[in-house]
């Protein structure tokens, strides 16, 4: 964070934060790589924003240390850390023009007038605000205010850019546009981005890695496909998207994975059964399941009856109930759904062995 123009590498070791008796963050250790786009994802009150505020220096951790490029910055005040920050609601200076807002961090750093003019001009061009230089924030649309906030946070070339739910106030179309823009800015600047959101699709779409929080604990960190396809626990599995959970019995290791009994039928998984034995949960994302007349021998499959369908346009969402009463949801082509519903009696749900994964039985 101290060398402008260079992406910072951040290391958090055993960070904890208590507000009175409330434990906002518990023993968090996390490495944020140089130039990475890391998303902190979790429901509200999960500790993700507290961690961002600790990174920015606005909140002092109760325990643990924070390093930037190997230097301990735990006790350094926010104004000396100078991480770029984009706040929820943007927090622009309402009494300053677009230009003056963006020039603010450069003026604070006592850059020459010519230098400020040049860099502010470049930044305004880069975020597409040309022609709006003299306007006040109140005269801009939400998307434009967002651009000013990004420009102001990036103009002094901070080692890290911190973003606190920056898109929460934007409508859906604009949100997609701003996400693309942010991805471009990340590539262009090469700066480390740390982004807080509670929207899992946003997290999966934008980041190089996702860190999932709940109840003040960091549950899992990994690339989007890693956390989506191989969640460590039930919370992560459910938070990242819809998921079907089937009870499994007699889980044991097998050649190239594991096997178990699902409603009295043998199924196989590619994942290892080293953490769970006996009873477990088999989790499969709806889009990986398909419907067929019958399951071939050795294929993973379970019999179920379709109960309800929801037309989604490109596909149909089908709710089914298995013989032993487990509820399953799948997303299938429209004509497949119609056929399955018309049959009335049982169809077969099948899925590839590599798409199912094991979660411990019950709880987390």
């Amino acid at each position, binding site marked *: 964070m101290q060398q402008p123009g260079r992406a910072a590498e951040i290391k958090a070791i055993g960070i904890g934060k208590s507000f009175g008796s409330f434990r906002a963050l518990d023993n968090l250790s996390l490495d944020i790589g140089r130039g990475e786009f890391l998303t902190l994802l979790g429901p509200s009150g999960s500790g993700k924003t507290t961690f961002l505020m600790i990174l920015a220096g606005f909140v002092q951790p109760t325990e643990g240390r924070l390093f930037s490029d190997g230097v301990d910055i735990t006790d350094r005040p926010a104004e000396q850390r100078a991480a770029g920050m984009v706040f*929820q609601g943007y927090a622009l200076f*309402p009494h300053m023009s677009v230009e003056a807002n963006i020039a603010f961090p450069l003026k604070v750093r006592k850059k020459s007038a010519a230098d400020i003019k040049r860099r502010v001009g470049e930044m305004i061009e880069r975020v597409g605000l040309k022609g709006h230089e003299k306007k006040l924030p109140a005269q801009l649309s939400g998307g434009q205010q967002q651009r000013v906030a990004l420009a102001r946070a990036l103009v002094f070339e901070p080692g890290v850019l911190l973003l606190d739910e920056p898109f929460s106030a934007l409508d859906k179309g604009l949100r997609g546009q701003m996400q693309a823009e942010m991805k471009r800015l990340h590539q262009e600047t090469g700066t480390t981005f740390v982004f807080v959101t509670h929207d899992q699709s946003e997290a999966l779409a934008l980041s190089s890695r996702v860190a999932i929080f709940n109840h003040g604990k960091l549950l899992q960190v990994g690339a989007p496909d890693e956390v989506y396809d191989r969640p460590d626990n039930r919370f992560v599995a459910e938070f990242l998207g819809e998921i079907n959970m089937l009870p499994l019995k007699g889980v044991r290791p097998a050649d190239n994975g594991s096997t178990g009994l699902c409603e009295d039928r043998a199924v196989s998984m590619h994942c290892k059964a080293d953490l769970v034995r006996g009873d477990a949960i088999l989790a499969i994302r709806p889009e990986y399941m398909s419907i067929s007349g019958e399951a071939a021998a050795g294929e993973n499959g379970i019999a179920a009856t379709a109960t309800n369908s929801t037309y989604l346009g490109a596909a149909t969402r089908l709710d089914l109930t298995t013989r032993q009463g487990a509820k399953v949801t799948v997303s299938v082509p429209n004509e497949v759904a119609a056929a399955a519903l018309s049959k009335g009696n049982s169809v077969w749900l099948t899925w590839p062995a590599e798409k199912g994964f094991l979660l411990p039985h019950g709880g987390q």
Partner: protein
Amino acid sequence: MRAYLSDRMGAALLMAPLLLFLVLAYAWPFLGVVKWSFTLPTPGLGQYDALLTDDLVQSVFIRTLRIAAVVTVVSVAAAYAITVVWVRGTPAQRLIAEFCILVPFWISVLTRAFGWVALLSNRGLINTWLQAIGFISEPLALVRNEFGVIVGMTHFLIPFAVFPLASAMRSLDDRVLLAARGLGSSRIRTFWTVFVPMTRSGIIGAAMIVFVFSLGFFVTPAILGGGRSVMIAELIYLRIFQSPDWGLGAAISVVLVLFVGALMALLFRYVRPKQLI
């Protein structure tokens, strides 16, 4: 629509007693004063003519404006400091600030003026102490002059400046201050370049309220000025009750009311009424 109409009728009924009182107690008598200013002692514009030529009236007008200006600057600056503590301080600091703001309201303006006389007079506490420690040999002239008047009025008016300032400071988004610090701005720089400009409407409101109140002040200048630094309200009193010159007193009153009215109109162009409380 019905609900809207009955709401408006209800509001009108609730406000009616106050409006009636204002008309009977202020507007009607004031029309009488206007009439005097054109008819006493002889009908015509003679009293307004005198206003423009009378040296005494003009010097009192100028002194009133000068004192009001100084009191405004000092009161708003002091109120700003107190309000920052009141709105943004620790709970203990807030309590102390609140005490300092509210207690003066419970003590009569007369009592407070005499309190200042006791402090500031030649044999008052301050002069006695300063002489006792050998800091001065002759007592300082702290009262019966403009200085005394300004001290007394400032003390009275600070609480009135606090409310519009507090309203402006409370509506300020804390994240904007965090943003400034996050962008590298020190606390002092953030205060002057972000906090103060963002409370501008509060500053304008506070200044206008204090200035308008100062123009019509009577008791405090009469006691602490000791008849030597007469302000406009005291001059009106003297013209009406001591020299039977009702016409001139009435004319000064009319000019003062018009001037204050113009200031209030200007104030409400910049500040919405609810920002003042």
